[in-house]
């Protein structure tokens, strides 16, 4: 295992992701230690550039916690996000980074445990993949 745990940047939609993670923390579910949470009003707020810049500036993996398809409070947010993540994944392929480094995990406010487990699995997965060679910021 690499000495430092893989850095995960998790963009969390305030309607679902943030609350799910609060629930995870309060029920002290196990969370990866090198995790950074970025709250956003809606997953639709996350620009494609954020996804790449997060990886560029040090993240080994980026996760987006968005609401389920029909449940977006702003109706279109998670749908727009899906197409942006699709575009970002094409860019990752061209850069030569593994597609697993960027993923959307749809959830609702009550899936705290589910998202904690997902993060732990993601942390192991990224550990296996090794560090993100594309990051320019020095650790």
């Amino acid at each position, binding site marked *: 295992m690499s000495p430092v745990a893989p850095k995960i940047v998790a963009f969390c939609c305030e309607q679902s992701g943030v609350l799910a993670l609060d629930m995870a923390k309060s029920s002290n579910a196990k969370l990866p230690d090198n995790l950074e949470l970025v709250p956003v009003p809606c997953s639709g707020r996350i620009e494609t550039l954020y996804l790449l810049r997060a990886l560029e500036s040090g993240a080994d993996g980026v996760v987006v916690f968005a609401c389920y398809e029909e449940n977006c409070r*702003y109706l*279109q947010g998670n749908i727009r996000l899906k197409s942006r993540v699709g575009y970002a994944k094409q860019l990752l392929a061209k850069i030569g980074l593994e597609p697993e480094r960027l993923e959307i995990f749809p959830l609702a406010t009550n899936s705290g445990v589910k998202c904690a487990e997902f993060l732990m699995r993601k942390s192991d997965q990224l550990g296996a993949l090794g560090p993100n060679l594309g990051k320019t910021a020095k650790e």
Partner: protein
Amino acid sequence: MYQTAYSSKPVTPSPVVLKPEALIIGGGIVGMTVAGELAREGVQVVVVEKGETLGGGAGDLRFFYDRPADVRKWMEEMISTLEGDANITVLKGGKLERLDGQMGRFQALIRISDGGVRTLSPCAVVVATGGITRPVEAIRGQSRCIGLSEMEKLLAECRDLPLTRNGRPVMRATFLLDLTNDDIKIDTVTALKQALLLQGKGCRTAIVARDLKVSVSGMELLYSRAREEGVLFFKYDDPPVLTDTGDAIAVEVQDMTTLRKEERETLSLPSDLVVVGETFAADPETEELCRAMKLRTGPGGRAMEDNPQLQRVTSNRRGIFVAGACRFPQVVTESLREARAVVQEVMALLLGGGGTYTAENPVAEVDAGKCALCYTCVRLCPHIAIGVERYGERNVYAAPAEKDQNSPWQAARIEPAACFGCGICVAECPARAITLYR
């Protein structure tokens, strides 16, 4: 690093002045209820009804399922108080043709059937246009097969005992439900109500349904009373077979009490009348209205269908509310509950904020200098909060551009009061010209 989701700049979006004026589209029971209660609070209300009389879809309702009052009398009283109220103007034969501007400065253009045109500037709009049902296609051509609304009329108008229809006595009636709309409770409620009345007139009634939906207040009691009165209940998986036996229609159902499918025996219910639930269809006029008002229509083509994140009566646009059957076909009492919810919302909006509205949520703002007028944000805003001022002579609100006070805003402009703060426009703007300010 990357710009955080918000940027902190002490911007207090200028408050929007709200006059206590509301426009209600649809003169049915929901529209009238909202109008009456808002008027009592001193709000100037205009009700636009496409027909020549008020009352709308519930007009053919005769009996309440939960109280013995006479619906027609209750309806007439409501209409008369409405038409007498100084705060309410009723525009009959009116149709909303166009709605421009944003909350606080809506410009509603109403075309009246007599050719007249009225322009109103309401501060809040309520859509209560009700739903429509498609007439029952006579199933296999039986004339003894009628819809629930026709049975309601028969029960109200026919005084003799036992009930007669076209001269023939109705001694045995069978209600056949869930053939068409299966996720809607209203048919079960109406069927139970009518079955009790029929039983009271000495007519043996049976209700055949895929499953009985009783999750409406008071329905459990009604169901048990019906059982006590002797109404028979049957469930079915595959729809029952109807055969015309000359003097009656035999409704063949399976006795679902035996578990194993092959052991179930079929029973035949000879009935003088078979009553079927009409299909609730999307109303093309409501769809057209939603297009004119840029309201989001749900998958069934109805206004603002269910989304757990949204309150039941709010729409995707600030200052526009939706209530009643046009949102989702439902029982009258539920529609009235939505009507009262709308009254709360409108009063909180128009009267609660001291005559103004300032957005509590973060608001996005366009940097006019960087905007390339590519219309991306205007097209993508789910809340129709963005317009382009220079061309939009209809969006006449010309906010002075920050830098150059007198020239009108030469770019896309986000109406602070209408913005919900989701940030979709910020992420999609190709010039990164939009910022979300907390």
